[in-house]
């Protein structure tokens, strides 16, 4: 156990701090929104890539900074940006870029990675279908090879950002006679391909975050496939692994906890701050213990990864526990606000721009999306604890 960073890392931290001091003013304010990045965001991202604070380990030839992988340095960057309250950079699309780098052809890497990490090419994920959610491998949108083109027909749903995205990475059934996991391919195409229709779906927060996406005779060049024909399920699992890591992120938990403390200090009933009332204090301290335990759990994962060890159980639980904890923090904030807690949109008296109600709903979306809580528990039970799978029903 040694929580100190050595000289090399402290020097690196100082560098990041210096950079932030000098460049903070160029960073876009607030969080990145739902749509495509604006010019200011793209310029900021370019600057971060140039200094190695975004797309850090992506090879130079594909447009990244080209540093050796070093998990601790990534962690220091994230920490310092969070402390300075400066918008961090990104590595393009965390679901897609690692997959292209791992499984794409040389041509694909050159064509896709650079523009994606610069924010010039944005993506949506075409996986879920009306009939295939948790049981994703049962998906039925199909693609048939006709000459040099795939012809896609079917429907996707819950496609986040499809209304803005330039590109889609999509799972389609190409081998109808193969067993379900072996009949899927991973295709990529531009969203302006004729035959794609996107209908935004308004979510419970009132925003159109995701969409229904319809495909009618959509023609995609044959080589726009990642991995081999019929191997799409395994390609997709490589992406899910990356996506899962980011949901329930402990840095975000800590930031939310701090905001919760502020709410409890600032909100008063008859002049008395809620944080002085035993029932609220008790719940706050309970949540703090959970938040801290997830923070240290994150440090444990970090150490294991840094030593090239598989973190095991500590990693398996992050999505389930982290998303739930976020949700509980939002719930306490809403309760602490009492009747004011229901205010929304641009109502007078609104606290924190209405973020608590919004997060309370969005968190539920994250508890459901990217593998539901129940599916997480199945995976923890089966893969981490070694419990047997449920017996399969005979196909009817």
């Amino acid at each position, binding site marked *: *156990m*040694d*929580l*100190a*960073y050595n000289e090399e*890392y402290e020097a690196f931290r100082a560098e990041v701090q210096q950079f932030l001091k000098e460049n903070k003013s160029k960073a876009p304010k607030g969080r990145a929104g739902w749509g495509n990045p604006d010019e200011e965001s793209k310029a900021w991202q370019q600057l971060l890539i140039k200094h190695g604070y975004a797309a850090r380990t992506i090879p130079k030839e594909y447009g990244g900074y080209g540093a050796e992988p070093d998990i*601790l340095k990534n*962690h220091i960057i994230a920490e310092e940006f969070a402390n300075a309250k400066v918008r961090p950079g990104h590595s393009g699309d965390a679901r897609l870029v690692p997959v292209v780098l791992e499984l794409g052809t040389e041509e694909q890497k050159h064509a896709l990675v650079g523009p994606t990490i610069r924010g010039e090419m944005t993506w949506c994920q075409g996986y879920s279908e009306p009939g295939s959610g948790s049981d994703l491998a049962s998906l039925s949108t199909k693609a048939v090879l006709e000459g040099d083109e795939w012809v896609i027909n079917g429907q996707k749903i819950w496609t986040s950002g499809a209304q803005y995205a330039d590109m889609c990475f999509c799972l389609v059934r190409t081998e109808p006679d193969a067993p379900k996991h072996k009949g899927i391919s991973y295709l990529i195409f531009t969203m302006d391909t004729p035959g794609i229709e996107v209908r935004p779906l308004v979510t419970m927060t009132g925003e159109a975050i995701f969409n229904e996406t319809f495909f009618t005779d959509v023609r995609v060049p044959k080589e726009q496939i990642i991995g081999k024909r019929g191997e799409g399920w395994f390609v997709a699992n490589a992406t899910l692994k990356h996506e899962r890591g980011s949901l329930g992120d402990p840095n975000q938990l800590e930031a939310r906890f701090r905001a919760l*403390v502020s709410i409890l200090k600032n909100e008063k009933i008859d002049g008395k701050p809620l*944080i*002085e009332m*035993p029932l609220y*204090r*008790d719940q*706050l*301290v*309970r949540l*703090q*213990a*959970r938040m*801290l*335990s*997830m923070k*240290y*759990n994150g*440090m*444990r994962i*970090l*150490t*294991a990864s*840094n*030593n090239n060890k598989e973190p095991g*159980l*500590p990693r398996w*639980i992050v999505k*389930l*526990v982290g998303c739930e904890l976020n949700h509980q923090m939002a719930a306490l904030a809403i309760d602490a606000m009492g009747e004011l807690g229901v205010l929304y949109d641009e109502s007078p008296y609104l606290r924190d721009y209405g973020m608590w109600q919004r997060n309370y709903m969005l968190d539920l979306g994250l508890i459901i999306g990217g593998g539901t809580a*129940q599916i*997480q*528990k*199945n995976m*923890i*039970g*089966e893969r*981490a*604890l*070694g*419990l*047997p*799978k*449920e*017996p399969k029903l005979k196909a009817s």
Partner: protein
Amino acid sequence: MEFALSEEQRMLQDSITGYLESKCTLDEVRQAAEDNVTKPSDVWQGISELGILGIVIPEELGGVGLGFLDAALVAEALGRAVAPVPFIGSSIMAPVALLNAGDERQKETWLPKIASGDTVFGVGVSEQIGRRETDGIVSSAGKLTGKAMFVVDGLDADMLIIADDNGALHIVDANANGVTRQKLKTIDKTRALAEIIFEDAEAELLPRSEKSNEALLKTIDAGRIMLAADSMGASDVMIEKAVAYAKERKQFNRVIGSFQAVKHMCAEMASELEPCRSLLWYAAHSMNHIPEESRVLACHAKAHLSEVGRFVARTSTEVHGGMGFTDLLGLHYWFKRIGLDRQLLGAPELIREEAAVAQGW
């Protein structure tokens, strides 16, 4: 940056766990419980030979001079084995009190004896956390009068460290005139808690505890971290047993672990407990290395493991069906160990209030 146990720490863990698995089996625990023994001589002998009784005592005073994280690993191993031996009071809280408040002579007299296992200390500080069933303990002219409840390791103790009403700490001979002990029968037959009445009993002040309650608080913090560690070990075992049972017990022609209701109970237990391990490591580490955070962290470790421990204890029992409810299976030893850890040195509600105060809330 390395947030993990060291090679030495894993070896320490393995050697103690290995020893206890072979020499402190459930049969031994059951026998001791039936005989009303909380310090069976063979197990006591064995763990004193392992050197763990002096784990936090400096080497020049006969101990091994390790940190609280190492000590927590020992407490965890003892919790795993539901081992009926004095440890938290005698080998952790008493040394912390002596090291932080004692003078040189007191330290030189008692610490080597604790480390060697020649002297067992009981520690009575519960009145400083919340006074019940007692009017407290008054110290006057080198004598104590009053009643201490739930003295940790108190029944097997040769010597005592007792906090008076002002929070000052005193050494008292457990067999001196004016000291009467009574066993408090608890749910947990592996622990020795006592009620001790003092009537003008001869007491020796630990001088550095007279004007500051720093030493008292450190003693309580250390005790709480060890109780949390004990619950960690006991909860780990309860999950392992539930998972093993779920893989083997069949109903409706299938193992019960393939039923989602059972699988999810197991997954929930694991998901709740696993982050506690990191919280515990951090809290124990902070006692030596980040003292400015250790008060709050000790509170969190104790309170949070109390909550998670309770959840694991009832859920694991449920996974075992009727068998879980029997004496025969013995699962209840872990259930009760966790139950006692929760109440001792402050139940979670009280401790969370302390954590809030310590943060200026």
